[in-house]
């Protein structure tokens, strides 16, 4: 590298040199030789292209793509939500008269009598009279006292009105079954029309109907009009149930809503469902123009996640390898240069670090951090430090080995003779000679670090949501439904990972061959 005698410095014009002129010989610097050998290696060039592609994809792609890393997308779906339930009352409801006590057994007996149409029945040695007042209405007397009323019709109190006393309700029912009219109760005149409206001075207080409509949620208040229309839609004039259909109703604003009606004959209940448009996260949507690789379980664009994930994976790889190399070179350099007890001490330290099972330690620390809810950003930082700290031993060993042999060479004796200080001798003269092996080692190390990080993230113990990393994108396959159905969630991430790691390994391998002076070509 130092004695560069490149062809570029030669004069442009081709002169005739004598046969033994040095300028006739094209001299390449060692660097150029390495480059030449490197580019001859097809695998290495392929690796270089792969790496360039991945870097562009991660770093430039993230800038170009319009979405943010954690942007969630929504989609609208029609959801059938329960609106109201309707039922037609075909059983008698027994209401006790004012001041009367009707026990449960007596109620049952009354019900039975009403169904059978008995005019008299006995309960506990008391004989009751059961008077049929009209369709679905019985008055129960004990002697001349009114005990209870059995009615199929139900009085629904209008919104904003209070419930009427028993006497009013009883009279209203009586009037209704007779086809309408008016009655007086407590000195007040009430009127009941054919449709069952109970009114006082023209104010509708309540209405009588056999149709019961209950709201499915507290915030639904079906109007009277709605209920009547619904009844018409559900039951025909003769009281037969119409087949399931859709029910269209225009509310007070004039907007039409369509309701789905489902009749359950076993329970005699209609379920009226309203289809409403609901915003939901666009999860696991298939690849489309907006999302070239679809969306993931959080409704985030997978392409964008891959780009940002690539950044995280590559940056973590680089930082870890830098930490490893700095530590390894310092420790290895000192050990190799000084030798003796320093060397012994550092090498035993290296042995110890070789022995520490790093994967189990990372798993334990990762799950401990899970328990303590450590902030994802701090986690990422700790992960890098840990990976770097656990991985320097190999590099230290390599550097030391190289330096041990270099130290004995003449140029080192020369530096010593020149009186250059120790740190300068190590870092200026020894380390540069270790560079080739170091570069190869780091390149290959990048690949394995990225795999390590991806494995941890895959297990859910490395880079955590909301940050993306190739590993944690793939971790969705832990749900076997995702694995079998949504290939676009995890296969692209795996391919990115493979390409990046393969790129580093191809380039590293090519560099190893290129740096090797024994190479034949």
């Amino acid at each position, binding site marked *: 590298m130092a004695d560069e005698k490149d062809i570029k410095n030669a004069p442009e014009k081709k002169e005739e040199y004598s046969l033994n002129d040095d300028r006739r010989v094209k001299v390449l610097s060692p660097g150029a030789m390495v480059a030449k050998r490197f580019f001859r290696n097809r695998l290495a060039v392929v690796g270089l292209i792969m790496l360039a592609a991945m870097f562009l994809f991660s770093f430039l792609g993230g800038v170009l793509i319009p979405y943010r890393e954690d942007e969630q997308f929504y989609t609208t779906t029609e959801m059938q939500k329960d609106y109201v339930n309707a039922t037609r009352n075909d059983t008698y409801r027994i209401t006790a008269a004012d001041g009367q006590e009707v026990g449960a057994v007596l109620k049952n007996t009354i019900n039975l009598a009403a169904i059978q149409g008995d005019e008299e029945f006995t309960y506990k040695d008391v004989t009751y009279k059961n008077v049929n007042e009209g369709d679905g209405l019985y008055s129960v007397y004990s002697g001349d006292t009114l005990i209870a009323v059995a009615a199929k019709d139900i009085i629904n109190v209008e919104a904003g009105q209070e419930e009427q006393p028993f006497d009013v309700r009883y009279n209203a029912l009586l009037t209704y079954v007779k086809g309408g009219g008016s009655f007086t109760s407590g000195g007040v005149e009430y009127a009941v029309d054919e449709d069952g409206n109970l009114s006082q001075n023209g104010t509708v207080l309540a209405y009588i109907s056999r149709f019961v409509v209950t709201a499915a949620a507290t915030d639904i208040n079906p109007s009277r009009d709605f209920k009547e229309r619904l009844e018409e839609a559900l039951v025909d004039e003769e009281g037969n149930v119409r087949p399931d259909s859709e029910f269209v109703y225009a509310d007070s604003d004039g907007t039409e809503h369509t309701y789905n009606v489902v009749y359950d004959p076993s329970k005699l209940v209609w379920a009226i469902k309203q289809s409403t448009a609901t915003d939901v996260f666009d999860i696991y949507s298939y690849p489309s123009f907006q999302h070239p690789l679809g969306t993931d379980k959080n409704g985030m664009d997978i392409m964008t996640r891959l780009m940002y994930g690539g950044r995280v994976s590559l940056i973590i790889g680089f930082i870890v390898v830098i930490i490893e190399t700095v530590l390894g070179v310092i420790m290895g350099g000192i050990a190799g240069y000084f030798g003796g007890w320093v060397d012994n001490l550092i090498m035993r330290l290296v042995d110890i670090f070789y022995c520490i*099972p790093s994967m*189990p330690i990372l798993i334990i620390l990762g799950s*401990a951090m899970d328990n303590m809810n450590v902030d994802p950003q701090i986690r990422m930082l700790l992960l890098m430090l840990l990976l770097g700290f656990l991985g320097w031993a190999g590099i230290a060993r390599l550097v030391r080995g190289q330096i041990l042999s270099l130290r004995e060479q003449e140029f080192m004796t020369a530096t010593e003779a020149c009186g250059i200080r120790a740190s300068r001798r190590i870092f200026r003269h020894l380390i540069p000679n270790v560079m080739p092996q170091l570069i190869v080692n780091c390149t290959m190390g990048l690949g394995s670090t990225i795999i390590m990080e991806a494995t941890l993230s895959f297990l859910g113990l490395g880079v955590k949501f909301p940050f993306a990393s190739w590993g944690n994108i793939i971790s969705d396959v832990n749900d076997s439904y995702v694995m079998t159905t949504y290939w676009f969630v995890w296969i692209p991430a795996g391919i990115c990972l493979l390409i990046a790691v393969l790129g580093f390994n191809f380039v590293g391998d090519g560099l190893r061959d290129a740096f090797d002076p024994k190479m034949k070509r």
Partner: protein
Amino acid sequence: MRNFIIKRLLLSVLILFCTTFIIYATMRCLPTSYVEQMAIRLSSAPNAKPYSEWLEQLNASYGLDSDIFTGYVTWLKDFAVGNFGDSWKYTVPVMDKFVDSVGISFIMGVITMILELVISIPLGIIAATKQYSKADYAISAGALIGISLPTFFFATILKLIFAVKLQWFDTHGMVGRNYAQLDSWGQFLDVAHHMVLPIITITIVSIGGLMRYTRTNMLEVLNADYIRTARAKGLSEKKVIYSHAFRNTLIPLVTIVGGSLPGLFSGALITETLFAINGIGYVSYQAMVAGDIPFSMFYMTFIALLTLLGNLISDILYAVVDPRVRVA
């Protein structure tokens, strides 16, 4: 030679002490609330002892109530007499669980190792003898792809193809649904059938390293002077490669293979976890994630021990196989 071995052994013991101390210190550095959480969890189990008693017991059993050195010595004493404590997750003695699970890992390891040797050594030799040929490129690229494949991704792809699409294998587990109804031969076949995908995964992922190692060493040997001599003598190329070159390549191969023998017991953590094989790897993964300190401590010490043993074996083998390094 004996002095060399003794020296290495003593050194290994020292390194083991230091390593276990670091592991112990890491465990100690976990926030104390961790043990408290564990105690809460243990005491909330039905018919369990009250919280304070659990806390006391947990602290006492790991020497957490004393300072770090005394605690380490306490742990070490227990460890030395083979008392590894009870696993928190499995609620059985650590040793029982270990003995249960290590067998299957070892069997898988042995099969993988044999496959690895049978496949990678011949391929490595072919690549070296035909350097720069198409075969060499293909083998080198294949080896690098094997090294670069993330285990979890490759295993999932295999599962998708062979278990989900082709339905040849189950995606998870060691035994099939009707395992209990099979006779002993059928049970053996059933387990073997469930081992196929995991073994393929481990083999493919680990094959590359040995293949490249063989190739590099073979190339080095082929450039040596004695090979030139052999060729100059007029020996057939076959004889040169298989009896002169290969024998010399065996030196580094034997040392590296010997060194990896203890690793057969360590289990394949990721693969076993993905295929839910109850080997030592998966069992200890579950223990570690659950914060089972006794089992994790034991497992990590075990792995450290295996690594040391591996280094020791390869050092000694190197000295045995290669007479040139027998000076020490």
